[in-house]
C-alpha cells in the first residue's frame, strides 16, 4: 500500500504545523524521518525485583534483567507466521494508567481507624500514603519518555486512565491527579505548610507505620526504616510534572464514586472532610461521626450530649487545619473537575463534555484515530461495595455502539475500572429508581459478539493480568488489567496494536516502572527519591500482598495475537501516515514549548 503522495504529505504537514503553531520545515523533517523504536526505559530493558537476601523481612529493591515479549496464542490457536515481525505496521500506540489513588493523608475524611473494623478497609492507610503525588509525577515522566513506541517507533496517540484517580473522593486528591497528568505543579499539602498533620505522627495510632519512630509498633520489628522528617518533606515540597504529551481520557473508579471505595456518603458526614477534627482511633471516629450526624437530628443530639456528659474526653481526636477544598465530590463533580483542564494535552473534559454533566451520562466514546474507537464505561456501584457491574442502559448503549463500529470497520477498545473478576456487584437501592445490573458472564458474552472489539482495558485489582476471552469458532478479545500506582509494583503499561499484514493482529503490552531508582538512597527526599521510597515501602507492606501483584510472566510484556476482525488493508498506509504526522506534530509541539523533558 502506498503512503501519502508528496503533495499530500506537504499539505498535511503544513496544516498540522499551523494547528500546533510549529515551523513547517521542522515538522516536515520530523515527519519524514523513519520510525525508530524508542530506547527509553521500560521493563523490556530492566525490571525491578526484591533483593534475594536471607532476611525475609524488610527488603530493598534491585534491578534485574529486562523481559522480552512473550507470545500468547490463546485466541489465535495456532503458531503465528514468523515473517510478521518484518511486515507489521502500527495502528495505534496508547498509554494506560489505572488506580493512581492520589491520597490526601491529612484529610479528616480519610478514616484510617477503619482498618481496625473490617478487612475491606485495609487500604485506609498505607506506609507510602504521603507520596502518591510524587509517584504519579514520575510515572508521567516515564510514560512521556516512551512517547514513541519501543516496538515500532510510532508516536503515542492517546492515554487511557481507568479509574480510582482519587482515593477518598476528596476534591483536592482529584485536582492533584488531573494536574499531574496535565503538567501542572502542586504542593500536596491540604493542611498547614511546614507541618504534617496525620495519623503517621500520632503515636496512639498503633496500626500505621510511623517513619519518625517505627519501633512504636510491629513495623519496627519488621525492619521498616527510621525516616525523620520524611512526612513533612512529602507534603511540603512542590511536585512538578511534565504532563502527558498526548490527549488522555478517564473513567470512574469505585474510589471516585463511593467513600473510600466502599460506602455511600451522607451530606452531614461529607462536611467532616473539610473540617478541623481528625481521628486516629476507632472510638474517636465513632464519636466524630456521631457529632456530625447529631447536627441533623435533635433526638440524636440529646443522646450524643448524654454520652458527652459521661465521657468528656475521647482520646484520638486531633485538631487539624480545616480546608474547604477537601470537600467530597459527587458524581457530577468528578466530570466537572475534568472539564477544568487546559486545552493541552487535552481534551478538555478528558472524555467528558458539558453534555455529560447536564444529562448525568457518565460514559463516553471517542475516536482516537479514524479507525480506533474507544468506549469509556462507568461500572461503579452507586450504593455500596468496591466491585462493579454494567447498568442496563450502558450495556444497551455499548451493544448498539459496538454494532455500529463493526459495521464501520473500526477497531474498538472498551475501558472500565472493573475487570471480569470483579464485575459482580449486586447491590441496588432498596428504595428509589433502579435498573438491571449486568455482570461478568453476560457482559463478556456480549463483547464477544463483535469481532472488532479487540481489547477490554481495565484495572481495580492492582495486579497485572491478561485474560483471553475466546469466541466459539475462533478469535475473541484480550482483557488487559494494569496494576496500580499505589501498591507494589507501582506499574502501568503502554499498549500497541499492530497489523501483521497476514490476517492477524497483535496487541503488544509493555509494563512501565515509574522514573525513579530501584534502590532508594538513604536520606533522598527529592521528588524522584520519594517515588523510589514509596515503591520500596509498598514492596514491604505485607498487609497488601505485594508479591503476586506483578502478575505472571504471561501477564506483563506480551504479544497478544488474534485473527484480524476485518480486512485491515481498509486502513490505508496513507491514512496511517497522515495520523502519524498529526501525532508527531503534537509531540513536537510539546517539545518546542518545553512541556516535555
Amino acid at each position, binding site marked *: 500500500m502506498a503512503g501519502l503522495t508528496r503533495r499530500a504529505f506537504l499539505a498535511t504537514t503544513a496544516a498540522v504545523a499551523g494547528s500546533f503553531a510549529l515551523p513547517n520545515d521542522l515538522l516536515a523533517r520530523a515527519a519524514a524521518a523513519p520510525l525508530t523504536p524508542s530506547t527509553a526505559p521500560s521493563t523490556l530493558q530492566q525490571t525491578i525485583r526484591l533483593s534475594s537476601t536471607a532476611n525475609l523481612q524488610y527488603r530493598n529493591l534491585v534491578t534485574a534483567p529486562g523481559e522480552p515479549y512473550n507470545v500468547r496464542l490463546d485466541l489465535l490457536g495456532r503458531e503465528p507466521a514468523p515473517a510478521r515481525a518484518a511486515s507489521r505496521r502500527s495502528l495505534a500506540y496508547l498509554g494506560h494508567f489505572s488506580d493512581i489513588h492520589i491520597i490526601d493523608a491529612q484529610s479528616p475524611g480519610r478514616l484510617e481507624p477503619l482498618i481496625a473494623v473490617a478487612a*475491606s478497609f485495609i487500604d485506609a492507610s498505607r506506609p507510602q500514603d504521603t507520596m502518591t503525588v510524587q509517584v504519579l509525577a514520575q510515572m508521567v515522566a516515564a510514560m512521556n519518555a516512551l512517547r514513541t513506541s519501543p516496538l515500532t517507533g510510532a508516536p503515542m496517540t492517546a492515554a487511557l486512565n481507568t479509574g480510582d484517580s482519587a482515593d477518598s473522593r476528596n476534591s483536592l486528591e482529584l485536582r492533584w491527579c488531573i494536574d499531574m497528568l496535565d503538567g501542572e505543579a502542586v504542593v500536596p499539602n491540604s493542611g498547614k505548610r511546614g507541618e504534617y498533620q496525620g495519623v503517621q505522627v500520632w503515636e496512639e495510632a498503633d496500626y500505621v507505620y510511623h517513619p519518625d519512630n517505627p519501633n512504636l509498633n510491629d513495623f519496627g520489628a519488621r525492619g521498616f526504616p527510621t525516616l525523620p522528617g520524611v512526612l513533612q518533606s512529602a507534603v511540603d515540597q512542590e511536585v512538578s510534572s511534565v504532563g502527558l504529551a498526548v490527549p488522555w481520557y478517564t473513567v470512574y473508579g469505585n474510589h471516585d464514586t463511593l467513600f473510600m471505595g466502599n460506602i455511600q456518603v451522607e451530606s452531614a458526614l461529607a462536611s467532616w472532610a473539610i473540617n478541623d477534627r481528625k481521628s486516629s482511633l476507632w472510638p474517636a471516629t465513632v464519636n466524630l461521626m456521631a457529632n456530625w450526624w447529631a447536627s441533623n437530628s435533635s433526638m440524636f443530639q440529646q443522646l450524643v450530649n448524654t454520652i458527652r456528659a459521661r465521657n468528656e474526653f475521647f482520646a484520638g481526636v486531633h485538631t487539624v487545619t480545616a480546608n474547604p477544598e477537601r470537600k467530597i465530590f459527587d458524581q457530577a463533580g468528578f466530570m466537572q473537575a475534568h472539564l477544568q483542564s487546559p486545552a493541552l494535552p487535552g481534551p478538555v473534559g478528558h472524555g467528558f463534555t458539558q453534555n455529560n454533566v447536564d444529562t448525568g451520562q457518565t460514559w463516553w466514546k471517542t475516536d482516537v484515530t479514524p479507525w480506533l474507537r474507544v468506549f469509556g464505561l462507568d461500572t461503579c456501584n452507586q450504593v455500596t461495595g468496591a466491585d462493579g457491574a454494567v447498568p442496563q442502559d450502558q450495556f444497551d448503549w455499548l451493544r448498539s455502539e459496538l454494532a455500529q463500529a463493526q459495521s464501520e470497520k473500526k477497531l474498538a477498545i472498551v475501558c472500565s475500572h472493573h475487570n471480569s*473478576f470483579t464485575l459482580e456487584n449486586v447491590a441496588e437501592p432498596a428504595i428509589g429508581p433502579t435498573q438491571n445490573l449486568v455482570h461478568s458472564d453476560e457482559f463478556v458474552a456480549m463483547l464477544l459478539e463483535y469481532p472488532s472489539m479487540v481489547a477490554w482495558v481495565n484495572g481495580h485489582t492492582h495486579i497485572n493480568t491478561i485474560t483471553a476471552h475466546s469466541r466459539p469458532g475462533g478469535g475473541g478479545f484480550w482483557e488487559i488489567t494494569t496494576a496500580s500506582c499505589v501498591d507494589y509494583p507501582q506499574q502501568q503499561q503502554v499498549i500497541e496494536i499492530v497489523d501483521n499484514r497476514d490476517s492477524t493482529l497483535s496487541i503488544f503490552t509493555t509494563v512501565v516502572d515509574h522514573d525513579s531508582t530501584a534502590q532508594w538512597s538513604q536520606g533522598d527526599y527529592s521528588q524522584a527519591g520519594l517515588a523510589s521510597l514509596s515503591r520500596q515501602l509498598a514492596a514491604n507492606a505485607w498487609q497488601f500482598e*505485594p508479591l*503476586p501483584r506483578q502478575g*505472571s510472566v504471561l501477564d506483563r510484556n506480551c504479544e497478544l495475537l488474534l485473527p484480524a476482525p476485518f480486512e485491515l488493508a481498509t486502513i490505508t498506509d496513507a491514512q496511517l501516515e497522515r495520523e502519524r504526522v498529526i501525532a508527531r506534530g503534537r509531540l513536537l509541539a510539546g517539545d518546542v514549548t518545553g512541556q516535555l523533558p
Partner: protein
Amino acid sequence: MTTTSRYSRPRLTLAGGLLCIAALCGCSQAKGLAVQGNMNVIYLETAATDVLVAQQIGVQSKPVCTVNGSADYSCTGTATGGAPIDVTVPETAGDPIMVITVGGATVFTGSVLDVIEANSQASP
C-alpha cells in the same frame, strides 16, 4: 448451595464491615450485598503460569482458575500441542500446595507462596 465461579466469592468480613459502616453512616440500605472478586484465583493463575513458563512448557492457553465454594480451587489450560494443563490445590490451609499436570503427567507439586516469593526476587 455450592456455586462454582471464577468471578465471585462472598467475603464475610467485607459484608460484615459494610453493614457496620452503613449503619453508622446512615447510608441508604442496599438490596443484596456487594461481593469482591476472589484474588486467590488470580494469585493461583499467576503462580501456575510462572511454573509452566519456568519449566519451558509451551502454553497454548494460559490456565484459568475457578473456585468451587470457598476453598476448592482448580485451573485448566492447554499446552502447545494440545495437551491439557490441570492445576489442583489439594491443600489450601496454611501454605497452599498446588499440583500441576500436563497431559496427565505431574510436572510440579509445591507451595503456591514459594513460587510467588521466588518470582518476586532477583535471581541470585
